């Protein structure tokens, strides 16, 4: 499975997550966001970039509780709460944002 | 009953027994199963260690495993032999169980 943008192909698993993290780019993110029916804004990108950085540091996609806390620490309490994150990613910030960020499905994701 | 430590590796092949002995609190029970039963047989390198452990721990071995290996007649005195029901009883009576994989 997968998709193609401007001649570049991206492989995905049966749930639509990118198989190869290194293939991710902004174009892929935009495509995955459309698939998830998420309209990307600067606030969305901020979370996506945060997730990519988190993955780069720790080699895992964080559970939503951990993501919320870590965002609060870095971007302030007005963003580090589930209300804010669920407004951006209504179907679950960890699951949906991770998919757009090209990360694997979070471990222990409920 | 205090903790039950289960060792299933031969003492000459792996360090599981050494580690279990080192980190078992006095008063706990050590149960040897599978290849672990070689430790409680006379003349094995672990004999001294088993005798030392019996001073403050209860040492048990699963006799079906001893028998399967033909070691039933060389078991060190003082080692308590249990069958599968005895194994279950030990697990049920113990506060917690740790397997030294």
């Amino acid at each position: 499975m997968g998709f193609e943008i401007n001649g570049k192909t991206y492989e995905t698993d049966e749930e639509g997550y990118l198989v190869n993290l290194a293939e991710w780019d902004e174009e892929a993110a935009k495509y995955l966001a459309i698939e998830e029916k998420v309209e990307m804004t600067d606030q969305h990108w901020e979370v996506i970039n945060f997730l990519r950085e988190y993955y780069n540091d720790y080699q895992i996609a964080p559970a939503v509780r951990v993501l919320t806390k870590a965002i609060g620490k870095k971007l302030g309490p007005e963003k580090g709460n589930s209300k804010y994150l669920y407004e951006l990613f209504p179907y679950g910030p960890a699951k949906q944002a991770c998919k757009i960020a090209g990360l694997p499905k979070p471990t222990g994701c409920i | 009953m205090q903790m039950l430590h289960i060792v299933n590796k031969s003492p000459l092949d792996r360090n599981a027994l050494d580690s279990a002995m080192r980190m078992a609190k006095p008063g706990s029970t050590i149960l040897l199963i599978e290849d672990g039963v070689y430790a409680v047989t006379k003349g094995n390198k672990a004999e001294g260690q088993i005798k030392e452990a019996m001073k403050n721990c209860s040492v048990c071995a699963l006799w079906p495993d001893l028998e399967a290996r033909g070691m039933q007649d060389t078991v060190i005195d003082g080692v308590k032999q249990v069958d599968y029901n005895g194994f279950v009883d030990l697990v049920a009576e113990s506060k917690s169980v740790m397997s030294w994989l």
Partner: protein
Amino acid sequence: MEEDMSGTVKKFAFINRKAPYGTIYALESLEVVLISAAFDQDVSLVFADDGVYQLKKGQATKAVGMKNFSPTYRALEGYDIEKLYVEKESMEARGLTTDDLIVDVEVLDAAEMAALLEEQDVVLSF
């Protein structure tokens, strides 16, 4: 564990005694630990024998083509898993000190480790 665990906090210890990469134990343990964090239990991680090698700094797995999961130990704090213990005898037998380890740990000697294990409600071995 047949009893209903809702609302009761139990002491869980994950015992890691295998080196990383050679077997799947270390990675499997880490995944179970991360999942267990969702259940708000009192979790301790113990590293003994070759398990101490899991925490060695400087792991670089590119050439062997495996995922380097050692940075994930640094994420545990964010999951509120802050009790990491290393057995002194195991660490010393491998020529390591806490300076060689990727995370802060508490070093316990064998007798202290025995006491810690005895305190646990559930011990999970990897």
